[in-house]
């Protein structure tokens, strides 16, 4: 019989020291590969100009400064379209896109997971199949479609497609399958609650981790959206695009552009930090059956 030991009150198989060391070495190296570029972004934003152009470049900063961030805000103030407009655009599309998605996808997931009606298998299969290709495939025809809907150069072109993201529905449906108890729903129905009421009052509170996950995925996508082929007018463009324009300003804006990169990356990272445990919980039921 193999050697056993306990860890966190659980009995586990004894691990060989050699294996532990090997794994630690691999993990640390991979970790540095992932972490150092992120660290470098942060450090660059805190470097005064003379340190930004120092040879050789350093992964630390000697006299850190927030001047780059101040420069960034100055640059924002002199942009042709007021910068608040870009912020408003990104916030509007993120919020409207995310909440529409959450509502539509949860409602559909509830029906697909918890009501036995003809056609549900087929519908879910198609959504699952659509996880297997990305939006590049549909880009050209979607553009023609948007043109025919007269949605080009409007917020609709950014918001509505976000409503029907297939990953969100997939994760929500799988989560409801495993985490919403049928007998609870049954008793609610016996008490005379209709399906909409059962969905909203009983099922939705039981899937909080999943809706947080949907919100975060949808928000990340919309927040990171850069220039869209559907939008021409400057006043409808996204924050990410506007920041990209500042970054494109070349050498004399190196400091401000480093600061901009930090701001753009910190938002999704912070959002993930506060919701990590919920997302992992949702992923627990993400498995795909064949």
């Amino acid at each position: 019989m193999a050697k056993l030991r306990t860890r966190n009150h659980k009995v586990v198989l004894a691990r060989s020291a050699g294996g532990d060391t090997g794994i630690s070495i691999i993990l640390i190296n991979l970790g540095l590969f992932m972490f150092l570029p992120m660290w470098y972004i942060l450090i660059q934003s805190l470097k005064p100009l003379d340190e930004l152009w120092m040879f050789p470049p350093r992964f630390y900063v000697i006299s850190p400064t927030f001047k780059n961030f101040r420069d960034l805000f100055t640059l924002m103030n002199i942009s042709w379209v007021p910068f608040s407009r870009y912020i408003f655009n990104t916030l509007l599309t993120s919020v409207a896109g995310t909440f529409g998605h959450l509502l539509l996808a949860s409602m559909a997931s509830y029906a697909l997971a918890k009501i036995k009606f003809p056609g549900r298998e087929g519908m879910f299969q198609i959504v699952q199949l659509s996880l297997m290709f990305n939006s590049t495939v549909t880009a050209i025809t979607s553009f023609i479609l948007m043109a025919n809907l007269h949605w080009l150069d409007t917020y609709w072109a950014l918001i509505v497609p976000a409503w029907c993201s297939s990953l969100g529905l997939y994760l929500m449906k799988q989560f409801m399958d495993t985490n919403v108890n049928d007998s609870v729903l049954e008793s609610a129905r016996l008490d005379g609650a209709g399906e909409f009421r059962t969905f909203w009052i009983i099922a939705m509170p039981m899937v909080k981790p999943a809706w947080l996950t949907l919100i975060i995925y949808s928000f990340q996508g919309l927040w990171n959206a850069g220039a869209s082929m559907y939008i021409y007018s400057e006043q409808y463009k996204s924050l990410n695009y506007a920041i990209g324009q500042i970054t494109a300003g070349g050498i004399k804006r190196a400091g401000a552009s480093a600061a901009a990169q930090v701001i753009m990356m910190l938002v999704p990272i912070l959002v993930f930090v506060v919701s990590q445990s919920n997302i992992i919980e949702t992923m627990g039921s993400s498995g795909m059956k064949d």
Partner: protein
Amino acid sequence: MATKTAEKKATSRELTKMQWKLKEAKQNWVAYLMVAPYMIFFTLFTIVPVVFSILLSFTDFNMLEVPNIVWLKNYVTLFFDDDVFLIAIKNTFIFAVIVGPASYLMSFLVAWFINELPPKVRAIVTLIFYAPSISGQAYLIWATLFSSDSYGWANAVLLKLGIIDTEIAWFQDEKYVMPLCIIVALWTSLGTSFLAFIAGLQGIDHSLFEAGAVDGVRNRWQELYYITLPSMKPQLMFGAVMSITGSFGFGGIVTALAGFPSVNYCAHTIMHHLEDYGGQRYEIGYSSAIAVLLFLIMVGANLLVKKIISRLGT
């Protein structure tokens, strides 16, 4: 069970299967109401564009003239008369064959390595590995690290060590563009599948490991092969789909780092070819054929890998 008894009832009432379905549908009309909003938009923005692409790929539509049906001409041109497309296919496969499996393996191994760490430490390590994939355009930092002047980290180090004596223009040199883009793609690739693996590993019933240890599983590799992998097959499947789809769709990184088109088309992918003909030359029929091929390649690769995984351990 429920459907079986239901079916029995149906035959006893001498309803045909069709009539029963109809009855079931009528009883559950609310369900259709609930899926309708999502399914309508999903159809409009996912199904319709795919079907439409397939139809357009048999025409010479160019946004200006009335389209003619040209049958397979677009496809024939792509394979026999478009050298750049052949480069694009080759590059797309190189990217996908390297980045797909590598990111999948890396996601799984890292998730597995950190599985036994205390929860707080695990959360921090998860963040470190996951952060690059959600940070938007953070990968642009690689353009700084590998910039063509001596202020780029790579050039500075090599110059200092005396390995090179003039700066290398990394993203303008055919030799380096592909490998560098692959490295950057890997850097951003620990995404959804990584999280799914972490969750899958956490969800394995611990008594399985205890039973395994009693039954003679001797080390962690046996444990991995006999217990861990079979227990998280559904997550492995979902992770594979996420990794494969991701590995075919990262042309954006190439455009941002190496420009469009890249030097001598050395990192030109199917996605770039599509963008070129669809977005810039408005040859919609031709670009639809490209889109259809990309669609078939992605879905085909996914179904193939799903089949392989479903046979794992059986």
